């Protein structure tokens, strides 16, 4: 357990030095600047648009970090040959993989936390400058329910990290791993289409493959509750719990596979 924590801490420190913080600052600045510009363009929908833009930016920035740092977690160590030094220490291979995963998830969570503070700061500012009675909305400007959306983004990113790490354990090309992770994320957005594939194809075999892919591929679309939280529509607690459980189970399965593959790799 201590070894896992050591590896995780090392990844966290390394990632923070790895320009991740720059993206956070860039995000915060873009969000704040856009809040002033967008207010001029959107005919009273500035708060909705800032909420949408903020959540989308958290998701997109997080996705980039999860994919591009995630795919290099293991392959970079192999490429740099620093893996020999690591494995020479009393760190078992499964501890190394799990530590790497937890380190990046920790980085992503810290990243999201800073972005969330900037996000709420901008919304608080919008509430402050809004003339009283000038704006009526279906949900409050500074709405704690937005945290549900941010939490679901975090869960989605944790799953994306597991996918990236999985590809990283047996592919020596970081670009290929990134492409495969991105492709899986995109495919995971089409869950409904895959499930209802029988409505667009006549072949029962093709429909069956579509349905099988729906169950086998990670359903990233299920984590997307951004629209609901922005509009103040309640998201059922049961739905959140089942989706989080699904994400945890899928990530655990991928980590197990990653550990299995990594344990059998020969680095000679």
């Amino acid at each position, binding site marked *: 357990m201590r070894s896992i924590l050591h590896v995780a801490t090392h990844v966290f420190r390394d990632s923070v030095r790895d320009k991740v913080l720059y993206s956070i600052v860039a995000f915060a600045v873009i969000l704040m600047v856009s809040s002033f510009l967008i207010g001029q*363009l*959107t*005919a*009273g*929908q500035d708060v*909705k*648009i800032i909420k*949408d*833009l903020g*959540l*989308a930016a958290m*998701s*997109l920035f997080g996705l980039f970090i999860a994919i591009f740092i995630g795919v290099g977690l293991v392959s970079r160590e192999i490429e740099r040959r620093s893996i020999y030094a690591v494995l020479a220490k009393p760190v078992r291979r499964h501890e190394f993989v799990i530590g790497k995963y937890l380190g990046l998830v920790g980085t992503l969570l810290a990243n999201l936390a800073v972005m969330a503070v900037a996000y709420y700061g901008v919304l608080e500012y919008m509430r402050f400058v809004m003339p009283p009675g*000038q*704006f*009526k*909305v*279906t949900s409050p400007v500074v709405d704690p329910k937005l945290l549900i959306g941010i939490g679901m983004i975090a869960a989605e990113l944790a799953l994306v990290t597991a996918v990236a790490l999985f590809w990283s354990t047996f592919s020596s090309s970081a670009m290929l791993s990134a492409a495969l992770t991105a492709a899986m994320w*995109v495919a995971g*957005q*089409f869950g409904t*289409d895959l499930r209802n594939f029988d409505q667009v194809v006549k072949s029962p075999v093709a429909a069956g493959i579509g349905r099988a892919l729906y169950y086998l591929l990670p359903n*990233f*679309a299920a984590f*997307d509750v*951004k*629209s609901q939280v*922005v*509009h103040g*529509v309640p998201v059922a607690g049961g739905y959140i719990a089942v989706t989080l459980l699904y994400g945890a189970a899928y990530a655990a399965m991928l980590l197990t596979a990653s550990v299995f593959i990594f344990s059998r790799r020969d680095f000679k």
Partner: protein
Amino acid sequence: MAGVVGLQGYRERHFRTVEVDEQILYVRAPSVMMRLALSFKDVFADLYWIRAIQHYGTTRLSSSQDKHYELLYPLLDLATSLDPRFSIAYRFGALFLSEGAPGGANRPDQAVALLQKAMAANPERWEYPYDIGFVYYRNREYSKAAEWFRKAANVPGGPSWLSPLIAVTMTQGGDLRTSRFLWQNLLSSEERWVRTAAERRLTQLDAIEQIQQLQFLTSQYQRRYGNPPPTWDAMIKAGLLRDLPKDPTGVEYVLGQGSGTVTIDGASSLAPLPTEGAP
């Protein structure tokens, strides 16, 4: 950096670029856009909404006599498909798609289609059937308007004033007071844009009422002197007016030479006045 700025400025001054006036919408099918947007549908909905406003504003303010709002419906359709709870986009559509030319697209059919889509996605909202009734009212189809006001009244949580509105629409459709009542209800809308549009329309209705009163006074002048008033000064000298008559924005009304008809000045921000509710 200074060099780059300088070069940009030099190019601006010496090589004028040809601006393409044509507005293009590359993806029109909402089903395609919904897939292309992946998990960023709301942001794309916002972008299409901003484009819809830009399109409407640019077309409305253009100097062209022949204004076309062809992209308004496709843009609103895309925005509301990507975000089916985008209330302002539906209600904006209702107001400006149904508005007569040149201030709007003069397409009440598209306004109704957009609002029916809103109803299908948000059956708990009474505002959308109300807005459909409003579109029919503006189109002078009073029995259809009353039918939709009834549907709005049947939505749980609908306001109590909807029931008397049904009877008023059936009996006094086209009446200026009914029109004012309908617009006043929009002043309590959630959407600032709808409220702003309602405020403007209520000011226009004030102007219509003032024109009716002025028209009555010019007819009195004609009865007294046998010919229509040549100028407002003549009306003042005759004791029918105290001052030069101005619309609510402070622009003087126009008196038709030889006819005595009173109209709003084309330079007024209230022009052109709507025809709804006018006798």
